[in-house]
Every structure is written in structure tokens, then in C-alpha cells.
């Protein structure tokens, strides 16, 4: 291994350690100062971006890392995890009976298309209804 390859390895190890210890701002500054953008550079930068909640940018850098080193299974694995991550969140909703009943349809009887009462009309109607023992609109 050449001296410059050794230095690169030490540099990336140092960045990895910073990321593991939560020093993301420092790691980002050091990475940005580095001119040579290898696949490992893009990979480490994507990890920092994920932590920053910059998902779209993280995805781009991970894709670039995979492009530069297609044989690296670890990069592909992390990219696959990032792409499927949000399903752990959205599936909670899509599996609910509420969503399956409505099949994701956003139409409801309170859309502007079918209700032509103003807020004042509704408040007055609700108050009259409550005077007679009912409750037209529960929330007012």
C-alpha cells in the first residue's frame, strides 16, 4: 500500500470514529475540506447527511458511492435500508382499518364541494340544536 493510500485509510477511519462518537459537524467540515471524493467519501458523507435529516442528499451520495464501487455490498445494503426505512412508519397507517375502509380516498362529506354553510350558520344551528337537547356539531 502506498503512503497516500495509507493516509486516506487513516483519514476515513478518523471520520468514521467521529461519526460513531456523534461529532457530525466536525466530521462534515473535515470531509468537505477533502478534495478527493472517493466512494468512501460519498458513503461517509451520506451517513452524516442521514443524521442531519437531509435524506434526499444522503440518497444521492449513497447512489454515487455505489456507482463508484459497485462491488461494495455494504454500500448497497445501507442504500437499500435507507430506501425502505420509511415503510416502518407509513405501514402503521396503511394497515389501519380506517385507511382500508376509505382506500386512501380523501373525499369526505365535509369537503367544500358539498357543504355550503358558513361558520356562523353552523354555530347558530349547533346552538339551536343544543337548546333542544341535541348536539349538531360535537366540537363546538
Amino acid at each position, binding site marked *: 500500500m502506498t503512503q497516500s493510500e495509507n493516509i486516506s485509510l487513516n483519514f476515513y477511519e478518523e471520520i468514521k470514529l467521529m461519526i460513531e462518537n456523534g461529532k457530525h459537524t466536525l466530521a462534515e467540515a473535515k470531509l468537505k475540506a477533502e478534495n478527493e471524493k472517493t466512494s468512501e467519501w460519498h458513503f461517509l458523507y451520506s451517513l452524516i447527511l442521514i443524521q442531519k435529516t437531509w435524506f434526499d442528499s444522503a440518497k444521492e451520495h449513497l447512489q454515487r458511492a455505489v456507482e463508484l464501487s459497485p462491488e461494495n455490498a455494504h454500500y448497497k445494503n445501507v442504500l437499500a435500508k435507507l430506501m425502505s426505512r420509511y415503510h416502518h412508519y*407509513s405501514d402503521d397507517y396503511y394497515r389501519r382499518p380506517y385507511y382500508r375502509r376509505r382506500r386512501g*380516498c380523501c373525499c369526505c362529506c365535509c369537503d367544500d364541494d358539498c357543504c355550503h354553510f358558513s361558520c356562523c350558520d353552523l354555530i347558530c344551528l349547533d346552538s339551536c340544536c343544543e337548546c333542544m337537547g341535541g348536539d349538531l356539531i360535537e366540537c363546538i
Partner: protein
Amino acid sequence: MFGYVTPLKDELRIHEYNTFKSYYCGLCFHLKNEFGNLPRMVLNYDMTFLALVLDSLNTEPIYTKMKHCLTSPIKKKPIILDNKALSYAAHININLVYYKLLDDAIDNKSLRSKLCAQLINPYKKKFSSSVYHINSVIQDNLQQLYALEKGGNFSSIDEICDPFSLIVAHIFKSYPHPVTDDNELVRENLFHFGYALGKWIYMIDALDDLEKDMEKGKFNPLNLLYNKDSLSYEDLIRQIQDTIAFTILNCGYNCKHYLTQLPVAKNKELLENIISLGMMDQYTKVMHSCGAKCSHSDGSSNTSSCQCKKDSINPKTS
């Protein structure tokens, strides 16, 4: 911009729904008691959620009183009073609305904004000293946001979302009262939670306004970033829906994750409902009203069962 962070009522227990309402009404009363009647107009669900999260991080009991109000002159409603989190949310609510109106007025976007900013200006004197620091953070980041929006000199959705996300992050982190097990880690988790939430709100708002902004030639980050070929609204949405879903839903994931890291002492199920179900429901409604009918970010396609009125868009094939 505000009003997207709400619970999914169908999946709430009655007492959870009543709790949410009492925070919402409580915010209205805190706005009235600390600023007067006029600023109650700026009441919104997102600030209610802010108060709900922060108040849920301490074990202090909630002080609730049955009161009449303008919208319920006959029937009394439970309202939370003398609450530190609601007081903070009231100050932040006025602050955000004021600086937004000010920037709109400076840019001469509308006379209405100028007049509204003038109406709110006297209430600045009533800001507590505990929010002075966050006021300057809000002002600085709003200025940065408007500079980016005006100049169009940004190259990623993450970049344009950053200023507003930082505002919400700092609002959560800088809560001036102690929370349970308060330490640097809890405050960092509040920061990350707020950042993800702020980004979610900014993107949902951009998505919801996209069609209207394209029609009127107004700035919209999604149009500027993703519509280099001057596509129609329908074609643009079809092209970017997966890209948008990726960021919005990952922000939702982060909100859910960081909520589990916070020392939530009460209202846990209500908070989980809002983050996992309410926010998803809002996203689904906005996406569907965008015309991405019968095509979901989970790849499924429900053409035959869709009953939506607006059905001019062909479903995307998975």
C-alpha cells in the same frame, strides 16, 4: 403553512380527543390572556401540538376548567389554564405569524400582510424575556429562508427546507422550562424531533400549494427544483411523487423515532396518534388532492376501489 399536524380522530379514544381539544382551547385562552382578543385569530393546530409535546414531558398535573367561549356560548368546554407549555406556544405562535407577515410586507407581497403586521406589532411588547433568544433565531432563519426563496439559489430540497426546520428545531430545544430528566441529550433529541417536524411541515405546505403557485407564477420549491422541463402540474406530480414521499415519510419516521427517545410522561397515545396516523392522513389527503390518485408510495394501486371525485389522472403503474 400551519394546520397540518392534527390527530386522526377516528383512531382516538374519546378522552384522548377531549384532551386534544382542551389543549387547543387552552392555547386560545392563553393567547387571549397574554395578548388580547385579536391575536386569537392566529390560533392553529401546529402550535397546539408544540404545547402538547412540551407539556407531555413533565409529570405536572393538567389544570382544566369548564368554561364558555365565543364558539360555545351555551355549552361549557374543558380548557387547560395556567400552563407553561401553552404560554410558551402562545408566544411562539404570535412571534412566527408576526415575522412571517413582516417579511411578506417588506417584499410587498400584499397590502393585507402589511396591515396584519401593523395590527400584531403592538403585541411584541408583551413577549416574555424567556423567548427573546428564540425570537432572534426565528427572525434570522426566516430572513435566510426568504433570501433563498427570492434568489432561487439552492440545489436540493434539503437546502431550502433547512431554515424553517432549524426554526422549529430551536423552538423545541429552547423551551425555557425544565422537562423530566432534563439534560443535554434530551434537548438534542428535542432539536432532532423539531427539525424533522419542521421539514415535514414545510414540504407538506409546498406540496399543498404547488398547483396554486404554478397557476399564479409564485415561488414553489418543488416547481423550481424538479420542473426544469416546464411540465404541467399533473405531469410534474406524477414525476416527483416518489421523491417527495421519500423525504416526507422519512421525516415522519424521524418524528416517531425521536418521540420514543423523549421522556414522555403523559399523553403518549395521543402523541403517537398524531405522529403515526394524523400526519400520515394529512399527507395522504394532500397527495390525493394533488391528483396522484390511486397510486401510493407503498407501490400499491387501487384503481377499482377509488371513489374520488377528481379522477382525471391515470394511476401510475407500479
